[in-house]
């Protein structure tokens, strides 16, 4: 409407689109080109080896479990940070972003060092028969680590702005604390939890740096899909790498669509009350 008042529409949009085109769209087109070269049946054939299947299963299955774990723990941690005041809260709050800020390779070797059989935590866990380092459990641990901030940071603002009088009303009508949580609070948080879940899932599926050190990378057991891409590239098997890349990219695009759908859905519900 008032678009004439402010200058720079053509310049800023043109620059942004051109930059995005060169950095993001053109490379994506290169992948699409390679994938179409291989063809749909070709991709399926490249993905059919037991080793690739096992890696895909571990990457997707592990990320799914890690995202579920993150939703549960993330909800508890966010609840503690938002609703309660206790010493050290601010420091813990700042610490949440550590997996964002810490380079993945650093997180990877640090996690390996503490969960190795002689590490700080490993030496207590291994006698109990819990092997973390160099097993699928280690992969899971690293995936939980990298996905954790996504759930907390998505949930935090929503939990902060949640009206507490609804809870008070539920309580004065005789609901127990658990009932209030399950019937009043949780339903309103579900879209946010879903967004956090999808973001943590997307991050965990594609994660490479923090996983490969602790995984031990045993074929058919603790090898993740991104590692296979790297290995195929090292063997100059571009077609095989592209096939895996397309599957992973398609999955992340699907999650992106899911997230934006959830956000549109919540906005539509939030608008009438605002």
């Amino acid at each position, binding site marked *: 409407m008032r*678009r004439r008042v402010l200058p720079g529409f053509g310049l800023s949009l043109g620059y942004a689109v051109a930059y995005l085109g060169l950095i993001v769209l*053109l490379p994506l087109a290169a992948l699409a080109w390679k994938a179409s070269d291989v063809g749909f049946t070709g991709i399926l054939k490249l993905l059919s080896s037991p080793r690739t299947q096992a890696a895909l299963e571990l990457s997707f299955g592990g990320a799914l479990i890690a995202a579920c774990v993150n939703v549960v723990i993330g909800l508890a941690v966010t609840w503690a940070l938002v609703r309660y005041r206790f010493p050290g809260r601010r420091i813990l709050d700042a610490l949440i972003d550590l997996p964002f800020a*810490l380079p993945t390779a650093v997180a990877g070797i*640090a996690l390996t060092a503490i969960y190795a059989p002689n590490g700080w935590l490993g030496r207590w866990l291994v006698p109990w028969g819990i092997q973390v380092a160099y097993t699928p459990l280690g992969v899971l641990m690293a995936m939980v680590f990298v996905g954790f901030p996504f759930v907390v940071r998505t949930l935090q603002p929503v939990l902060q702005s949640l009206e507490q009088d609804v809870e008070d009303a539920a309580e004065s009508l005789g609901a127990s604390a658990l009932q209030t949580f399950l019937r009043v609070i949780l339903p309103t948080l579900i879209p946010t939890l879903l967004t956090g879940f999808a973001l943590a899932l997307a991050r965990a599926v594609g994660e490479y740096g923090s996983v490969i050190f602790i995984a031990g990378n045993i074929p058919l057991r603790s090898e993740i899909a991104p590692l296979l891409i790297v290995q195929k590239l090292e063997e100059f098997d571009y077609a095989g790498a592209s096939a895996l890349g397309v599957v992973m990219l398609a999955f992340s695009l699907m999650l992106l669509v899911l997230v934006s759908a959830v956000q549109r859905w919540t906005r539509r519900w939030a608008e009438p009350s605002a």
Partner: protein
Amino acid sequence: MRSRPDKRRAGIARRLGRALIIVLASLFLCLFLLVPLASVFVEAFRQGAHAFVESLDQAEAVAAIRLTLLVAVISVPLNVVFGIAAAWAMTRFEFRGKALLGAFIDLPLSVSPVVSGLLYVLMFGAQGWFGPWLTAHGIQIIFAVPGLVLATIFITLPYVARELIPLMQAQGSEEEEVARVLGASGLQTFFRVTLPNIRWALLYGVLLCNARAMGEFGAVSVVSGHIRGLTTTMPLEVEMRYNEYNYVGAFAIASLLALLALVTLAVKSFLEWRYHNDMDATAPRRR
């Protein structure tokens, strides 16, 4: 924060639940976040300060630090200019395909770093799209510094834009329109009105972008070729030393990166505490 009736009725069970959640959450955060962080520094100094300094004072470590700085110095400013341009276009004007543009800006966040690297290999690698042409002209991008820079730009592209867009959306364009109506030129409006309004969010975006640029591993690992002293950034040098069982050396470089992460987090917390209203797009509306 807690409301009155809640406090009055607080039974033993409720207080117990509260204590339990606090203890479990703190314990989890300490074990899960603090312990790995502490272990980086402990492992780096395992054989004393002398071994720590010595492992950093080696040609390949110095080269890795230099290369990391070089990559960040090129990629961060480019993404800052992009972030400002994208935020300006998206928050100051209405146009078709705005949602699509936003989705593409977010895309690098959800693509696996390895896939990001793969994209550039498919474009510029020997068998890639431009591969034959580049070879014919003697230009090397993959397994060389330009590849590292491109992969880093891709990975860090969203950070500045994502900090600015919600803030500029919430601030609205009235102040800029007033400046224009009062006769300020476009550039004057930007430097005197817009930039001061967004400076803290911009600074935070730059910090995040920089932290990610210096710490990126997966994407640069794919395009680097791991040529020591030439194409190994700090995270790649960490990996190579670790795989050579040079643990003190690996953790020494890792501790520098961890320090960068800590500084980033500290500045972030400070900015949020000090300039809360200028950073958080939802803050002014909430109070």
